[in-house]
């Protein structure tokens, strides 16, 4: 392999890692909800795409950054709605029921989007699409760089929220011991709802990032994003945010690398195989949640 | 029958068990006591195979159990009950006992039992156990619907259903009233008469002093005393371990 091919390889890897922040955010969303409620919200990625769709309303009215903000806010609202519909009224001891209800929600969101847009992909604004940082034949795509920094900003804000605010403390308390948290005066349902809102905000950003990177929004994006998001969550360790971040970047990079090496139709096979490699070597994920002693 | 040699189990920096050694003789009812956190449950988990030792051995009938899986240990002859009851909640009382009993007829030995003497032998055993536990009229009730005392009895007979030579009882008296404890004591004695060896982990001093032949006392994962009930009650280390309160004498 000569130098040019090597540069192309690194290019593919870098682009992938930069885009991987999207997967990282989705992974964080899944893991947040799992960490607090020990449930998986299968409709999360679909809601994220949905939030991006909702922000389309703003497209010709405000500059692009506000559109992304709009997507985040829409995501937060959607997150709360999903909590209300799929989780609030189903007994906690019945994880299968909530799993199924989120599946139902996933179907509903996908179908709703398809109907309202008549199945036509919608263009989504991207920032810095045409400016790149060039280093000879290697360049850092401007739009991907922006997404990367946007993602990092979101993660930083999340960390601040979790570590420095009362809400963050409540989230962590409820995650560890819901009954005791209640006895300390925390409202479990309010905290859970808030967690969904926070995850929704992240998801909205992720959805808009995905739209910006690809240039269009389409309901077909929901399923692959869901699957990749789940893969990221599992590789990172259920309940671990740092794990989701690292795994997200890794999956993003690996995905693009596989695409470069083997083409787009085989790419996902290898991503799944990567998951299995991890499950065999480290079944708990990169940062497994600690097991109880007694 | 059972021998622990220098058994240690660490969880990260915490030494749950530290070089524990003791022996349980066949046919004995052997008590294992100690304050909370002294390592009693860890010991049971190590013997039954739920945990693996960090160092040291568990020897059963002279053989080192090593890395043997929990279910294989049951077939060798060790069964246990749980401190927080772990019944098969959605199965009936009968099915709970049956699940443990039917597993015995596996392999060649089981083949003979099933086809030559028929499944009736297993059914008989299960019926016997059902009446032993006093649960005949509850046989079709779901385990999760039983009263607490009945659940504890079911745990006991389910463990006995495995036909094991060594029964590990993990705080079987927890939450019981005086009458239930008397019942429990009778059942434990009955099981010993039927040839089982019993390792009893308990907090209930009266029960322990009354029923045990020999007692090992743990504190902070180490053995601090061992002997017959009468001796144990006199030992200052034991009293100190329980924060200086005097131990009640046997009833």
């Amino acid at each position, binding site marked *: 392999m000569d130098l040019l091919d090597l540069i192309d390889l690194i290019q593919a890897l870098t682009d992938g890692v930069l885009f991987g922040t999207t997967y990282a955010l989705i992974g964080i969303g899944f893991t947040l909800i799992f960490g607090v409620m020990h449930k998986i919200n299968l409709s999360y990625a679909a809601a994220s795409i949905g939030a991006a769709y909702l922000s389309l309303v703003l497209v010709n009215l405000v500059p692009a950054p506000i559109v992304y903000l709009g997507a985040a806010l829409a995501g937060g609202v959607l997150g709360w709605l999903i909590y209300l519909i799929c989780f609030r009224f189903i007994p906690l001891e019945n994880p299968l029921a909530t799993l*199924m209800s989120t599946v139902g929600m996933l179907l509903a969101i996908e179908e709703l989007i398809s109907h309202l847009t008549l199945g036509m992909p919608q263009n989504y604004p991207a920032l810095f699409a045409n400016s790149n940082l060039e280093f000879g034949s290697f360049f850092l795509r401007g739009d991907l760089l922006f997404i990367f920094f946007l993602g990092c900003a979101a993660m930083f804000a999340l960390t601040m929220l979790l570590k420095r605010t009362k809400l963050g403390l409540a989230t962590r308390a409820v995650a560890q011991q819901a009954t005791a948290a209640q006895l300390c005066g925390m409202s479990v349902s309010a905290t859970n709802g808030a967690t969904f809102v926070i995850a929704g905000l992240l998801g909205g950003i992720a959805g808009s990032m995905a739209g910006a990177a690809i240039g269009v929004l389409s309901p077909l994006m929901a399923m692959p994003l869901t699957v990749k998001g789940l893969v990221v969550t599992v590789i990172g360790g259920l309940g671990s945010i740092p794990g989701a971040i690292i795994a997200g970047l890794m999956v993003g990079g690996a995905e693009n690398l596989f695409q470069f090496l083997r083409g787009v139709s085989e790419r996902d096979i290898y991503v799944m195989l990567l998951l299995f490699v991890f499950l065999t070597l480290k079944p*708990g994920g990169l940062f497994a949640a600690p097991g109880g002693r007694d | 029958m059972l021998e622990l040699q220098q058994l240690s189990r660490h969880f990260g920096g915490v030494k749950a068990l530290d070089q524990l050694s003791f022996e349980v003789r066949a046919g004995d009812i052997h008590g294992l006591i100690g304050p909370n956190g002294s390592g009693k449950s860890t010991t049971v988990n190590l013997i039954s195979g739920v945990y693996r030792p960090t160092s040291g051995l568990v020897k059963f009938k002279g053989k080192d159990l090593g890395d043997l899986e929990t279910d294989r240990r049951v077939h060798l002859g060790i069964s246990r009950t749980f401190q927080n009851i772990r019944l098969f909640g959605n199965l009936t009382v009968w099915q709970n006992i049956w699940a443990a009993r*039917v597993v015995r007829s596996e392999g060649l030995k089981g083949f003979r039992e099933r086809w030559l003497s028929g499944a009736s032998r297993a059914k008989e055993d299960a019926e016997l156990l059902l009446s032993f536990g006093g649960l005949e009229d509850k046989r079709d009730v779901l385990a999760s619907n039983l009263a607490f005392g009945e659940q504890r009895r079911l745990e006991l007979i389910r463990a006995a259903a495995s036909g094991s030579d060594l029964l590990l009882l993990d705080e079987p008296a927890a939450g019981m009233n005086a009458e239930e404890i008397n019942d429990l004591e009778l059942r434990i004695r009955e099981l010993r008469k039927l040839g089982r060896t019993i390792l009893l982990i308990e907090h209930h001093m009266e029960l322990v002093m009354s029923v045990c032949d020999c007692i090992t006392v743990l504190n902070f994962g180490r053995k601090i005393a061992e002997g017959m009930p009468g001796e144990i009650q006199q030992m200052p280390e034991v009293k100190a371990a329980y924060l200086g309160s005097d131990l009640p004498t046997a009833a």
Partner: protein
Amino acid sequence: MDFYLGLAQVIGIHSLLGLSAWCVLHTGQVSLAQGGFFAIGAYLAGMLTSMFQWPLGYALATGAVSACAVAIAIGFPALRIKGLMLVVATTAFAEIIRLFFFNFKWRVAGPEGLVGPDGSLGFGGIRYFPANGWSSFELNALIWSLVAMVMVLLAWLDRSRVGTMWRAIGEDELAAQCAGINLTAAKVSAFGIGGAIAGLAGGIFAHYATHIEHGNFGILLATFAIAYPILGGLASLWGTIIAVIFVQGFLLEGLRFLGEWRSLLFGVLIIVVMIIRPSGLLKASLGMRGRLNKAAREPEYRRDQAKSGTTDEVHHA
């Protein structure tokens, strides 16, 4: 009339799919891999009859056995993964299978040109039934006799020691182990049997549809597969069948007049059913609570986390 016969065929095929998931769910493993085994059975059986002129019986059997073998191979590593991780892992597995067939091309010369799987274009020309003059009625008879056979098999297993062991494991793995039950044998066998049934269903599906493609075998199908036993209630086999009839018959076909809004309503309906009757339409489920709450463990800690202290549901005695 033909319409109803066709509907009955679909219900039959989905019943088999649901029964295969019932099997695996009994041991407490939530597996979204049934769609993958379905696909293996479909492609293999289809290829054997259309490309190599095998008789239907052998083709179906081979499809089922192969799916079973793959299921057993998957079953072993799946032992180390619990709860939600297993859901994700099995989803990923099913996706791999789907993507494999998306890329799979193998065509041979047939009586009317090339026949065989053609990657993303799918696999057409599985014309065993039309070519051999099977009527709709006969097809139904075949499908439903297979359903009956599988139900009898599963009912027999359920009553036997195998069933008791499966249920015990589904209730509490640790307690089951401490009662002497061999987890590996039981869980892998459940996986294998479930895989075989799904493979059989797939084989029939391929011949019923005459044209299959990777999109048929996506996550949606896998979700249907576990939805049937969950909606119908795990306690009885009939629950699954009734759930299939309910979903396929009433929901999808009965709501035909709603046209394209059917799927949306289906999604909404699932949500509603789960809110109103979380344990399924028929009797309560088999102790699945706590099962999905367990994250995977490090191999060193073999003990499950203590059960959550929430109150159990009340059953009819």
